[in-house]
């Protein structure tokens, strides 16, 4: 089936790009790989019939967050000459051990569990009205609190990063 082939291509791309983020030797390359990985996860949302969330993913992650990260990289110049040093700490082998161990445990749990819903023929399309209904009616208060959180966090970020007088 065409969709399944496409799914496997996207899944392989996501895994390769995510590995690129954590194993790359250049910090800018890591950021570029991250954009690809986040866009790939957005494509996965389309496979899951969640078009609205895919759109949000592309806009917020693919656009805003990665641009913010690239901007911070430019401001802190970790690749500048005379600044060259290893991007990994001395604890790297242990980190590899922990990551691999976690992956093995998660695989064991996923394959050892019988998940419901494996008999579903096709996913039902999620209309945008359902998303908005859930978001603004049932989760109205958390939505408002989340917006307040975002506002406060961004004002705090501006105050933290601002150049103060006499500095």
């Amino acid at each position, binding site marked *: 089936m065409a969709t399944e082939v496409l799914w496997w291509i996207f899944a392989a791309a*996501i895994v390769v790009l995510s590995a690129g983020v954590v194993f790359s030797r250049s910090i800018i390359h890591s950021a570029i790989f991250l954009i690809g990985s986040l866009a790939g996860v957005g494509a996965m*949302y389309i496979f899951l019939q969640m078009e609205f969330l895919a759109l949000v993913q592309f806009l917020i992650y693919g656009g805003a967050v990665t641009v913010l990260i690239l901007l911070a990289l430019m401001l802190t110049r970790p690749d500048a000459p005379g600044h060259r040093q*290893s991007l*990994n700490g001395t604890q790297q082998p242990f980190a590899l051990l922990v*990551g691999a161990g976690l992956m093995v445990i998660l695989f064991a749990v996923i394959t050892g569990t019988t998940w419901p819903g*494996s008999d579903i023929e*096709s*996913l039902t399309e999620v209309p945008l009205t359902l998303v908005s209904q859930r978001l603004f009616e049932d989760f109205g208060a958390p939505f408002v609190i989340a917006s307040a959180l975002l506002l406060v966090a*961004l004002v705090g970020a501006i105050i933290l990063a601002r150049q103060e007088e006499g500095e």
Partner: protein
Amino acid sequence: MVPLENYLVLSAIIFSLGVYGVLARRNAVLVLMSIELMLNAVSLNFIAFAAYLDPGKITGAIFAVFVITVAAAEVGLALAIVIRLFRNRATSNVDEAAIMKW
């Protein structure tokens, strides 16, 4: 039709890579990028469960919206801290920001 397990395995791989990145990297921005990977893996799990097991209510998808919101706030704040750290100590390595370490 891709079964639910495939999404879970994919998400587990991304999450484990993120854990490795958080633990191994020295640069604060790279640690942050690995955290983004982990948050994305969690969102993917939420949405996969919502699509497969909760199609009429999609509670998991709403959770993912909140995860994305909090991640955006977190990235903004963390990058402000990194820029501040770089301005004060001329480094963005987390192991060199050790004033408060006993």
